[in-house]
């Protein structure tokens, strides 16, 4: 869970992610809104977006952590043609790099536009919620590092009720509870409407194109079988008609 009202934009989570996953730093430039680096990449799996707004007390900074939302029923895992993406019980959605073939179907279907393709390796990368640490009973590196407690880790239901409570306390919003039908395993509590912080207006229902696509496999078999059956029946009826005409003629 990420509570943006507690975030101070120190970017310790970004550094922790880079260090734990041994990801190189990227050459970047100072952006006018202080967000740095400006976007996710194959070697940047999370970043803090800085959003400046004029509020009741004048100019204020708002922060939001941009990362994989680890959907409960991830479209990327359903779209992956080789089954390289797994949703684990503890919450993480992990790409198995050995299985990834770089088709980028996960990039195409992610409603949060998170996975990034690396041309050099021909594979796709994203946050895996430090699954290697979770398996050992540790918290994700970003959570362990956060100095203000803006990030927390735990059981989904417990965190969800905590996130709801917090959103109500700060009179804010909860993002991730019911996006993509079943929600996500990352919850974001914000004071501003999520869209104002640049969070994608993710669908509340499962992406229609994937639901339709799931019928393509069985329909292909049924279609081919139906055509062959039709052809067979037509041959049979034509033959019958020919025999009948022949015997009628005799």
């Amino acid at each position, binding site marked *: 869970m990420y509570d943006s009202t507690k975030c101070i934009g120190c970017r310790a989570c970004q550094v922790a992610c880079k260090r734990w996953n041994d990801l190189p730093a990227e050459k970047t430039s100072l952006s006018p809104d202080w967000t740095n680096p400006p976007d996710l990449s194959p070697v940047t799996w999370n970043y803090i977006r800085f959003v400046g707004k004029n509020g009741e007390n004048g100019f204020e900074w708002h922060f939001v952590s941009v990362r994989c939302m680890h959907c409960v029923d991830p479209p990327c895992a359903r779209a992956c*043609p080789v089954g390289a993406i797994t949703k684990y019980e503890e919450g993480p959605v992990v790409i198995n790099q050995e299985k990834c073939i770089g088709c980028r*179907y996960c990039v*195409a279907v992610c409603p949060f536009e998170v996975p990034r393709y690396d041309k050099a390796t021909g594979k796709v990368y994203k946050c895996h919620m430090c699954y290697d640490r979770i398996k050992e009973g540790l918290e994700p590196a970003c959570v362990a590092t956060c100095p203000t407690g803006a990030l927390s880790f735990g059981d989904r239901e417990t965190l969800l009720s905590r996130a709801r409570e917090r959103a109500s306390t700060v009179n804010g919003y909860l993002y991730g509870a019911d996006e993509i039908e079943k929600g996500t395993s990352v919850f974001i509590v914000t004071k501003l409407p999520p869209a104002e912080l640049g969070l994608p207006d993710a669908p509340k229902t499962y992406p229609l194109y994937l639901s339709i696509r799931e019928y393509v496999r069985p329909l292909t078999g049924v279609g081919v079988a139906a055509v062959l059956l039709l052809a067979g029946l037509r*041959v049979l009826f034509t033959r019958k008609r020919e025999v009948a005409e022949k015997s009628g003629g005799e």
Partner: protein
Amino acid sequence: MVEGKTGERVLRWGRLERSEHIHLVIAAAFLMVTGAALLFYRVAELRWIADMLGGIAAVRVLHRVFGALLIAVVVVHLFTRIVVRRLRSKMWPTVKDMRYFFAVAANHLGWTEKLPPKEVLGFFDPIAKFNYWVVGVVGLTLQIGTGLVLMEPDWFPWIPASMRGWVLLLHSLGFLFGLIWLTFHVAFSTLFSEYRPLVEAMFGDGTVPLEWVKEHLPGWYEELEKSKA
């Protein structure tokens, strides 16, 4: 299309058409097999298709290689029809063709025993025109276009990431309809004796018996007779 007479047989498919068709057959067959291997890879019982072709990574490469062959055939086709033949073709559809097409479809589906009069059938019958315009032009454009977007999204920066899910669906649906159509095309071309001379011409010397033309494509027969006169 090249026309002419060679004894009691007339030339139906020229060297260019036969060459285009055989290259299409090769490209389509391999694209269907590799496409099926990609689409069905997660179905454990069908994983052998990809494994047989050298693994899923090899299948992707093969799919692109035969995709390139398909594009090459299309480029040659467009060049010869637009630049060399300047769009002079008997393939343009007419209202009569459409009426005939639906009547034949109803007959093939067993809804009616009655076939429409054959005088409408010229050099290209309505089924051939349907195959060309709907499957060839619309279908191939769709498959090649969506295939290119899926292969290299960076070439199409104006297509937002959120739209690429729909592109994937279109490509998959194209495969579904393509495979069903191909089954239909192969089954009906090979199982019914009335089409056999066309198949033999396409994979042989390109000629069909004049008698067959008289019976099956009376419009074309009339044209041939007129040109003879």
